[in-house]
């Protein structure tokens, strides 16, 4: 039984920090609890209120979708494009790659600080826009521009996808391109008919992981928007909402219910993504 001795750290951690808290969270989501008095059993009331009577929850859900649906594919598309350029015989390739990858090494809090400064109403971005005669919006303070601003921030990290896809591109057999060239296919045709299909498994994997990560966006919203969630909740998202309910208002039951709905959303999207793989993801093992 040495096995159980060796895995005991994980087993204890699983029971104490995961399974136990999950059961507690499920129970709490069926109660109303402010942490000062005993929890009151309310059944499914928290879920009903969230889904039927809470406009802020729906707004947060919509904003999270909006953010995830734009930032993740945009980052991947940009990464794919840049990786394809870097995969050519480029002089100074290491330097380009380093500059593109560097932003992804900056911790999120520092990134948020940088963008808080860049996107200030009279900050550098608006000064730059001013030079070309455009009067820029107040970005983080403007309910129409706060979400695009958060997307810009996420796209700054497109270097991660670039380097990953570049590594995958190097693994594509050269013979495929040689054959295509003999057949007279141009570089653009080769990109869409060889490079992209060969990369679909890795693109798919990163799309799923990226969406899961994007649904859980927190720090950027918390640091960059004031009040948290932006003017008129225009950038309120699932996790900041949950955080506020739990740690600002002590609505522990309500917040727990939000966490389970978040889990459900993530699960549905993950399953949906896997269901569609057959249509567009190309696995080499399936051929021949």
């Amino acid at each position, binding site marked *: 039984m040495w096995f159980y001795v060796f895995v005991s750290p994980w087993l204890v951690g699983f029971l104490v920090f995961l399974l136990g808290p999950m059961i507690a969270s499920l129970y709490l989501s069926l109660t109303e609890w402010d942490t000062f008095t005993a929890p009151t059993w309310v059944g499914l009331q928290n879920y009903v209120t969230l889904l039927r009577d809470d406009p802020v929850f729906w707004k947060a859900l919509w904003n999270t979708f909006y953010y995830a649906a734009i930032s993740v594919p945009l980052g991947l598309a940009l990464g794919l494009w840049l990786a394809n350029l870097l995969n050519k015989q480029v002089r100074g390739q290491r330097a380009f790659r380093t500059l593109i990858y560097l932003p992804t090494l900056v911790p999120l809090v520092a990134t948020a600080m940088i963008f808080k400064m860049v996107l200030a109403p009279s900050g550098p971005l608006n000064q730059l826009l001013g030079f070309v005669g455009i009067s820029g919006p107040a970005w983080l303070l403007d309910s129409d521009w706060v979400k695009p601003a958060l997307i810009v921030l996420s796209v700054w990290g497109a270097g991660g996808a670039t380097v990953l896809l570049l590594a995958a591109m190097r693994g594509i057999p050269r013979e495929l391109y040689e054959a295509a060239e003999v057949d007279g296919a141009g570089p653009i045709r080769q990109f869409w008919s060889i490079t992209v299909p060969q990369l679909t498994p890795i693109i798919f994997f990163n799309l799923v992981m990226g969406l899961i990560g994007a649904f859980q966006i927190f720090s950027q919203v918390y640091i960059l928007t004031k009040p948290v969630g932006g003017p008129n909740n225009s950038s309120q998202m699932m996790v900041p909402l949950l955080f506020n309910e739990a740690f600002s208002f002590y609505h522990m039951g309500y917040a727990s219910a939000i966490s389970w709905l978040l*889990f459900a959303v993530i699960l549905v999207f993950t399953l949906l993504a896997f269901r569609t793989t057959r249509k567009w993801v190309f696995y080499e093992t399936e051929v021949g």
Partner: protein
Amino acid sequence: MSVLIQAQTTAAEVAPSPGRGTRVLRAFKATPFTYATLTVVSALLSVPLVFVVSIALSSDQTVNANTFTVLPHEFHWENFVRVFGTELPMGRFLLNSVLISLGAVVGQVLSSGLVGYAFARLRAPGKNVLFMVVIATMMIPAQITMIPQFLLFKELGWVNTFLPLIVPNFFSNAFNVFLVRQFVSRLSSDIDEAAMVDGLGFFAIYWRIMLPMLWPILIAIGIFTLTHAWGDFMGPLIYLNDESKMPLSLGVQYITSTSQALQAPPWNSVMVGSILLTVPMIAVYYFGQRYLYEMDISGGSAGVK
């Protein structure tokens, strides 16, 4: 996610470029358009970083008047010194970050190695079921357990200490366990079987024979844990209220949020803080990237297919 991104970065350096053959194929020919695009994109992505350095070197007057420039036009190096003085507790923040991160790294390295080894080599009824549980737990978002964990740590009196941020790491993390298991599975079992015949116990085998072979993957896990703990914002935000307990990631944000609403934050000091937060991560990546390649084989392929 970032794990896998970082994991495969070094593969780019290992694999030869397909363009580097006897003859350059058309698909790999760089055109002036290629150079123009790469130059513009690299420049755009770098501008915020250049700004950070420029602002960090600006005087208070420049920052207040909002007259800083992209390229630094003044060099107030003393900004890097004074944040460690009495005015701002940046030194304290930095020390707290180091303590929390080191605690987390020690915990993950010790526990993940042991558990991953057991899943790869030891035999016991129920092992496969347990391993499926390990994999399944990776799908559960941290927010589900956030509230009960907070209540648990509050009950234990651990709020406003580093313990909630360090202790869970001593119970290993599913992804790290998975990585170690994959790594051990690729090692030949001849040596540890021979050691077993010689009468060595499992723990001695682990400690004297496996551990020396495991260190590349343990260093990689250490790097991931360090990166995560160093940059973590939500954890410290939930558990640490005293300024003297805050790590740099929370402290930098704290400086901007406590300045008066009408008064602009002390951007030069904030950017010095951001640089202090970033430079160790660049250094860790630079010196550690060859170890991150270890993850490419195990993590990458298993994740993708």
